[in-house]
């Protein structure tokens, strides 16, 4: 109690509070700056250390000085200018050193050394400053025990502050450290003051505290003001810096959440937005729709027209999507050419579908870029929350499944998820796995559909047809598994399996029976095709003249130069090439001229309608005429009735194929048929 009484009695409370306020403000700024210094590297760190040291030193000094103004001395006081200035220098230089040491490492030794330095700086400043006070007509007596206590207290508190600081992450000014700094300064000052007793010499008139010497007062006022300005400068600097850091943090945050090319929210931002809406849908049933948008045809544009054009297309796609979405909808770029839209408040598929329609419409329009025109398009998959799910990843999965199924149906489609999609996808997944296995095990059957001469009815050949019956699913129609094999890259292998099997089996038939085998467009583009066919012919011993390879027009559409080279090399082997499904595609006459084709097969769909439908009849007639004039053999497929047969025959088609002639037969059945035909001929 004596200590505090002493304090209160000896000091002017208002000035003490002012000193405390300056001390607190200065320490707040100083701690903030020292955290900033610790976060920097290299030269910048030393600049921040310097600034911190100046602010901390001035704070210590100004606190001391103003508190001393509040000290009621029993005798007149004057200041020694040199010692007072020296004390200010000690405060600044010592603080700089202490801060610099603290930033060297986060380990204990650094904070302990720095705290020790800081504490000693405060003490040195205090006692140097005190020795600059000249008490007129009084003797100053020191209690050395208390002096030691003051130094120990200041040093311990400063060390504690710096230890705390070394553990802070620097995002906010650490208030605990500020308090410890203040405590160190205040404790040292007042303990130091308590250790000092001023004993007026005999004969001195004891008055209330008075400072004598105008020079001393002016100096004190000037230094106090400058100190305050420096603390203020430090405060301004650190605040400006903080704001800049905040701005750059916001910019970084924006960069982290947005796609640099299109400016749309990116995948991560989409994840957050979806999670937020999903949680709301789960909690309150708030509905929303998820649209995943996948561009059709983007890859060829990007590869063929250059990546700069591709980038420009993506930018415009982003803008068009924002035009197609409703105001407030969330549009994000979630992958290279994949976008997503979140539609708030959309509960049913028709509302989501109308936005999908707009998306497909707007992305289907041409992009005029420079002098080039890019045409892409889009498919959209839709899932609805909470109807389909409220779990973000399930919603994405469902929308992806819907997208997948819409893409299978063609370009420019949208599809809303439903449970049957899952079954279809599951079936496909299982079938794909089975098809891969079957391709490796060569687990396919070949059946043969007989082809007869239209005028003599004589068996002249057979078309080999692949059949696949996986144990789990029963027979899978070729229309389902052939496209699947093309997509999976298995068609080359499966095609060769069928070709080898058919050629081997054809060896047991009479030499007059020709064998037709289908080639997929994908196979035509495969550079290994010709050597594969040659190897099969060599291996089975089938004369090339007996083999006819059937291609479709689609095979000739893509890279027709490559197709032409391949077909020429096949013909050079001695095999024939025929054009299948003629009449359904582009049926361009230029194909017949350019490619080494020796036979046209008229598609069954015309044959079916031929005698009745005038249009089909004229097509059949035209193709037959064409064959005659270009010296091509004509086979009519899909003959089912006698009327059709008569019509076709009368128009000069040489060969017939169809259910009226025979259904596709197993190898054994076909061999029997060959034998019967042979006997008939012999008879």
């Amino acid at each position, binding site marked *: 109690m004596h200590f505090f009484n002493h304090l209160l009695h000896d000091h002017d409370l208002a000035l003490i509070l002012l000193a405390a306020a300056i001390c607190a403000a200065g320490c707040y700024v100083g701690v903030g700056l020292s955290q900033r210094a610790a976060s920097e590297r290299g030269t910048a760190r030393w600049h921040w250390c310097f600034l911190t040291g100046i602010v901390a030193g001035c704070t210590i000094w100004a606190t001391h000085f103003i508190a001393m103004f509040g000290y009621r001395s029993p005798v007149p006081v004057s200041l020694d200018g040199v010692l007072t200035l020296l004390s200010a220098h000690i405060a600044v230089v010592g603080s700089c050193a202490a801060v610099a040491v603290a930033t060297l490492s986060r380990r204990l030794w650094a904070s302990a050394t720095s705290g020790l330095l800081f504490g000693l700086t405060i003490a040195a400043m205090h006692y140097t400053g005190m020795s600059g006070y000249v008490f007129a007509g009084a003797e100053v007596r020191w209690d050395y025990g208390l002096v030691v206590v003051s130094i120990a207290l200041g040093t311990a508190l400063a060390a504690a502050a710096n230890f705390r600081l070394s553990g802070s992450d620097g995002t906010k000014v650490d208030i605990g450290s500020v308090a410890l700094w203040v405590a160190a300064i205040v404790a040292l000052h007042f303990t130091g003051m308590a250790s000092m007793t001023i004993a007026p010499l005999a004969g001195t008139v004891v008055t209330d505290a008075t400072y004598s010497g105008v020079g001393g007062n002016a100096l004190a006022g000037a230094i106090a003001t400058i100190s305050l300005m420096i603390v203020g400068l430090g405060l301004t600097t650190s605040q400006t810096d903080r704001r800049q850091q905040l701005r750059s943090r916001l910019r970084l945050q924006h960069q982290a959440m947005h796609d640099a090319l299109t400016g749309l929210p990116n995948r991560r931002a989409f994840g957050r937005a979806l999670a937020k809406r999903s949680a709301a849908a789960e909690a309150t049933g708030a509905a929303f729709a998820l649209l995943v948008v996948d561009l059709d045809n983007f890859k060829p544009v990007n590869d063929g*027209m250059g990546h700069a054009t591709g980038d420009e297309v993506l930018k415009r796609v982003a803008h068009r999507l924002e035009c197609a979405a409703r105001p407030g909808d969330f549009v994000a770029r979630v992958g290279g050419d994949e976008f997503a839209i979140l539609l708030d408040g959309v509960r049913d598929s028709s509302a989501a579908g109308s936005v999908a329609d707009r998306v497909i419409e*707007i992305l289907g329009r041409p992009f*005029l870029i420079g002098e080039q025109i890019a045409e892409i398009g889009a498919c959209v998959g839709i899932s609805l929350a909470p109807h389909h799910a409220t779990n973000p990843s399930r919603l994405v999965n469902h929308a992806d499944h819907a997208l997948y199924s819409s893409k299978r149906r063609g370009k420019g489609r949208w599809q809303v998820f439903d449970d049957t999609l899952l079954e279809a996808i599951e079936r496909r997944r299982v079938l794909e796995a089975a098809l891969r296995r079957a391709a490796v095990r060569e687990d396919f059957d070949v059946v043969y559909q007989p082809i007869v001469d239209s005028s003599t009815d004589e068996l002249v050949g057979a078309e080999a047809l692949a059949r696949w019956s996986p144990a789990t699913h029963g027979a899978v129609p070729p229309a389902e598994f052939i496209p699947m094999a093309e997509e999976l890259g298995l068609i080359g292998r499966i095609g060769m399996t069928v070709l080898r099997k058919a050629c081997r089996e054809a060896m047991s038939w009479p030499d007059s029976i020709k064998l037709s085998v289908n080639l997929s467009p994908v196979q035509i583009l495969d550079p290994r095709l010709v050597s594969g066919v040659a190897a099969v012919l060599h291996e089975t011993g089938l004369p090339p003249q007996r083999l006819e390879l059937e291609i479709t027009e689609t095979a000739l559409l893509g890279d027709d130069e490559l197709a032409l080279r391949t077909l020429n090399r096949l013909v050079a082997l001695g095999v024939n090439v025929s054009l299948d499904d003629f009449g359904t595609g582009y049926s361009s006459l230029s194909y017949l001229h350019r490619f080494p084709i020796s036979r046209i097969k008229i598609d069954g769909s015309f044959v079916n309608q031929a005698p009745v439908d005038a249009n089909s009849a004229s097509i059949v007639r035209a193709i037959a005429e064409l064959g005659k004039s270009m010296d091509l053999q004509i086979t009519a497929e899909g003959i089912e009735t006698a009327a059709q047969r008569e019509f076709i025959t009368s128009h000069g088609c040489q060969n017939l194929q169809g259910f009226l002639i025979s259904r596709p037969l197993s190898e054994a059945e076909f061999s029997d048929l060959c034998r019967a035909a042979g006997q008939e001929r012999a008879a």
Partner: protein
Amino acid sequence: MTERFDLTDQPGAPLLRLFYTSSAIARLGARELALACEKRNREAGITGVLLRVDATYLQVIEGAPKAVAETFERICCDLRHRNLALLEIEPADERIFGDWSMAHVGDSESLTIALRDDLEDIRLLAGVNAHNTVLRMRQLLDAVRARDLEVRNCAA
């Protein structure tokens, strides 16, 4: 990607001319649309014509390639029409519609029967020969201008 349009035969041509058709879904007249874009077109140096034949819009825009591309992108972002089909895009040395920042014909009630027939012809021709259609559109504007002059002269 498309090879329908070959823009390489006149490299460095100062102008680009573009012709498209679309179908209207809003009750938006040709006049309204043409007026809406007139100021911007004048500033960007775009000239052209917009016809409306029943629910079909036929529009030609011509100008500096960059301005044409920007204008067309804006048109492509507009969902008040559907089934947009780009019928022709060609480099050009001079304008066909230099007198009109965006002429419009088609929704005036006072269309003469001859004009109506012309519009119908133009719509049918668009699907067959885009280039000739553009020329026919210019002839149509000339005819309208001559008639208006006549009307004004009669009134005087």
